[in-house]
């Protein structure tokens, strides 16, 4: 087997194998576990960089495993998948560091890190899926791998949250499965192809294809937290902070959003979806979700829940981008896949830090945290500003392209949605920032765990948010430089519309 045919599989395995090994480790073997984790993460990073280079050069990588006649498991790399893979790999590395610091001295870490690695493997598998079948396979594995993470703490709350999470995702998985099989029964094996495969589908099955689109959307919408399928997301907040970070920025919601992008562009084809009114329907759903999520975020006092609803809202930008016909909006949606990830993971890291160091869980308790934890708060501020869409943080770039694309497509109502949403974002983030920096520090924090070193909190917890915040800033500042998410997204859009 030559290397090109093995690389996609190797990228998946580079986290799956360490993950499987970690289960067998004794609880006390910190060092070995850390070594395994970090080796996996670094190897994956190296492999992904290799792949980016290759894809940019027009190389194609494909691992194909025939399960049964006509049923192939295909991992392949195109521009879109590489973007998502790169995001997952990078953020996995950072999150692993964070998690090692966060979970110090808590029980069942072998189990935790095992599933953590599986979760990333599944995400990368989703990113690299070359067929709808493969996508479904990894989509379900992701459900399986995240359930233990959500339930990890073992409290009754965690059990409840995990149960709700499972009920939603299993239901969604079932829908996706039915949709995928239905599609395959109709048109044969569904391989993701730039420009879609249904362009010349016979007229008489078009109606069915539209129904299937909504079945698939129902399945993907659960993970992407489209209203009204978002109910699990706030409940899943019971998970440990690194898990929330991963779930919101990289793994679960992103998998759903990525799936929607895939289905629209590479299965149905944007042309087909546009001419059959699918894009419009998707746009409506995404817009409702954006507004609803922001409104809900406004009412939350719990910091993590506010962030969770913010995710509901922000992830739908990706769907929104996909729903506007035209390459510029596509760029906006696709690039937001990365930008939202960077910003949201920063915010969750910070929320974890506040909770860990000061016992601060609620927005109302955040008075003056900026003075007490300046590093964390700086990162938080950057993330929040980015979410609102203030230049030069990455979020601005996404919104700019989305708006431009909407204007170009003549969808003025989308512009209204964007403006409204940005105002709402500001309404729920700015008060936090105000509290953080401009309110006096209280005499007593809810539950303070002073850190012995000279930093405000352990380095493993402080550096990850700073790094991701810096990346979010850089992605906005240097948006036009080569190899930025924006440039890559343009490449994707070019290829999708090019053919």
């Amino acid at each position, binding site marked *: 087997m030559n290397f090109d045919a093995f690389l996609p599989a190797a990228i998946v395995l580079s986290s799956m194998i360490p993950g499987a090994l970690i289960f067998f480790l004794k609880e006390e073997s910190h060092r070995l576990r850390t070594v395994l984790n970090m080796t996996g993460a670094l190897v994956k990073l190296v492999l992904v960089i290799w792949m980016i280079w290759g894809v940019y050069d027009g190389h194609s990588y494909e691992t194909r495993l025939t*399960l*049964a006649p006509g049923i192939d498991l295909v991992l392949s790399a195109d521009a879109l998948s590489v973007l998502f893979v790169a995001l997952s790999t990078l953020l996995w590395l950072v999150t692993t560091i964070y998690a090692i610091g966060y979970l110090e001295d808590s029980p069942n870490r072998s189990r935790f890190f095992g599933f953590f690695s599986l979760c990333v493997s599944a995400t990368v598998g989703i990113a690299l899926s070359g067929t709808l079948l493969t996508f479904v396979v990894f989509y379900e594995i992701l459900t399986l791998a995240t359930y233990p993470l959500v339930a990890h*703490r073992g409290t009754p709350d*965690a*059990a409840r949250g995990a149960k709700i999470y499972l009920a939603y995702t299993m239901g969604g998985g079932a829908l996706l499965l039915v949709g995928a099989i239905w599609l395959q029964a109709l048109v044969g094996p569904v391989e993701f192809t730039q420009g879609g495969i249904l362009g010349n589908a016979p007229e008489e099955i078009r109606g069915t294809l539209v129904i299937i689109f909504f079945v698939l959307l129902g399945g993907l919408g659960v993970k992407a937290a489209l209203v009204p399928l978002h109910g699990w997301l706030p409940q899943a907040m019971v998970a440990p902070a690194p898990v929330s970070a991963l779930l919101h920025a990289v793994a679960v919601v992103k998998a759903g959003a990525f799936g929607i992008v895939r289905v629209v562009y590479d299965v149905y084809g944007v042309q087909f979806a546009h001419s059959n009114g699918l894009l419009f329907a998707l746009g409506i759903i995404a817009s409702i979700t954006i507004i609803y999520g922001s409104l809900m975020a406004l009412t939350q006092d719990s910091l993590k829940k506010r962030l969770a609803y913010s995710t509901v809202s922000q992830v739908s930008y990706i769907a929104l981008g996909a729903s506007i016909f035209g390459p510029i909006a596509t760029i906006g949606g696709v690039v937001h896949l990365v930008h939202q990830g960077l910003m949201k993971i920063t915010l969750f890291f910070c929320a974890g830090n506040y909770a860990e160091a000061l016992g601060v869980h609620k927005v109302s308790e955040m008075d003056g945290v900026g003075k007490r934890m300046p590093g964390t708060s700086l990162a938080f501020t950057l993330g929040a500003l980015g979410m609102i869409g203030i230049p030069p943080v990455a979020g601005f770039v996404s919104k700019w392209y989305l708006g431009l694309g909407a204007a170009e497509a003549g969808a003025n109502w989308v512009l209204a949605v964007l403006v409204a949403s940005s105002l709402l974002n500001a309404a729920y983030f700015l008060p936090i920032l105000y509290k953080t920096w401009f309110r006096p520090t209280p005499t007593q924090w809810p539950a303070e765990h002073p850190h012995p070193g000279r930093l405000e909190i352990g380095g493993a917890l402080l550096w990850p948010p700073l790094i991701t915040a810096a990346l979010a800033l850089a992605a906005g500042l240097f948006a036009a430089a080569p190899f930025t998410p924006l440039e890559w997204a343009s490449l994707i859009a070019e290829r999708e519309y090019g053919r």
Partner: protein
Amino acid sequence: MMIDLLALAVAFPLLGAVVVTATPSHARGLGLASAVLTTLTSLVLSLGVWRDGSVRSDFGGWGAPLGIGLQADGLSVAMLVMSNLVALAVSVYAGSYFSATARRHFWPLWLLLWSALNGLFLATDLFNLYVTLELLGLSAAALGALSGTRAAVAANLRYLLVGLLGSMTYLMGVALLYSRYGMLDIGLLAEVIEPGLVAWTAMALMFSGLFLKAALFPMHFWLPPAHANAPAPVSAALSALVVKAAFYLVLRLWLDLFDPVLNASVANVLGLLGAGAVIWGSWRALRAERLKLLAAYSTVAQMGYLFIAFPLLVATPPGLARDNLLAAVVLLAMTHGFAKAGFFLAAGLVQKTAGHDRINELGGAAQALPAATFAIGLAGVALIGLPPSGTFLAKWIMIEQAMIQGLWWWVVVIMLGTLLAAAYIFRVLGHAFNREPTPYRFVNDARTEIPALLLAFISAFVLGLIAQPLWTLLDQGVLG
């Protein structure tokens, strides 16, 4: 010197049973040795079939119709491999599971059961099948009662009697076929059998007998108590292999013998019963209070899927699609074998540690036995039908075929069963996450935990991803 692997696959466990009966003090060592030997024989035999096609051996040199022989083709070998691997794992597990006295009883009966299974998968003669069925039924019931509780004895007595009723009914069908066609060899009969009252009645009799043994809804009533109360390794074998053997026979007889007789309405009735099994079994599993009872009801449900395949098979015209469907059914049966055996073995460990198997109170035990909990989880993945298990692949093919044929009803049943299965599996797994403080060591007792884990792992990962050889195998005399 001539090695007849077909004969040895039956003779080795038989000789092993003889040896362990005669020297009960060495039962474990000798029993394990026979287990390994038998498994090796079966694997070598299967490899041969996989490479060179089906083999047949006629004992006594008389040949059909006068004599009896054994035959291994793709279908029988697929079941043979699954059964022998599962049985080997169960043997290793049982080596540590049973007390010294129980061991003396377990090993000879277990090896007899094994020879019955091997004999059944390889048989070509209708009456010979009756004898293997009886050998299977008697040894299975005796093994099931080994746990010694009153509930186990009563349940397995009922199992024994129902099994007898089934075999007698089956035998009546055989007698009818013999009286019309004057032979017992399946292959020869297939050449002369023609649709008509005689063949139809014989089929109805034989199939009803086998349905009883396969616990097809609504004839499943005997299964849950018998399987739930047996000792864990025996439950594993009963649920994974013994009922599966009856299903295998239905499939075999249908494919090889009754194909011209079986029409769509018969197949639909089978599918309907299967659907009933899926819904009812899953529902009862969801409501079960005990872990092993849950597993037993899950077996009822999983057997249902296998029968749902019949209407799909009948509706699908011969060709690639039908071959795929057939392979999917076999894959489903194999995956369930591995998964359910792994599940029961792990459940046995949990039960032993906790002293009971009431699901709602299992938290501590689950935490203390990560390997067993994992095995349950992995087996659960296969039972639900999540990827990358073999069940997923099989269900995918079944659903696709059902959609292509426009048989939406079966899609609904399969999906409903899948969701119910997810509910009952995660009901168990939910208890694994709790705040019981226990030092984490993944494997505590390798000899019992590793077999369970391996079986579950095979069901969840290996069979789905490396299913291709099964198609190659089934090409030997079954497909096409």
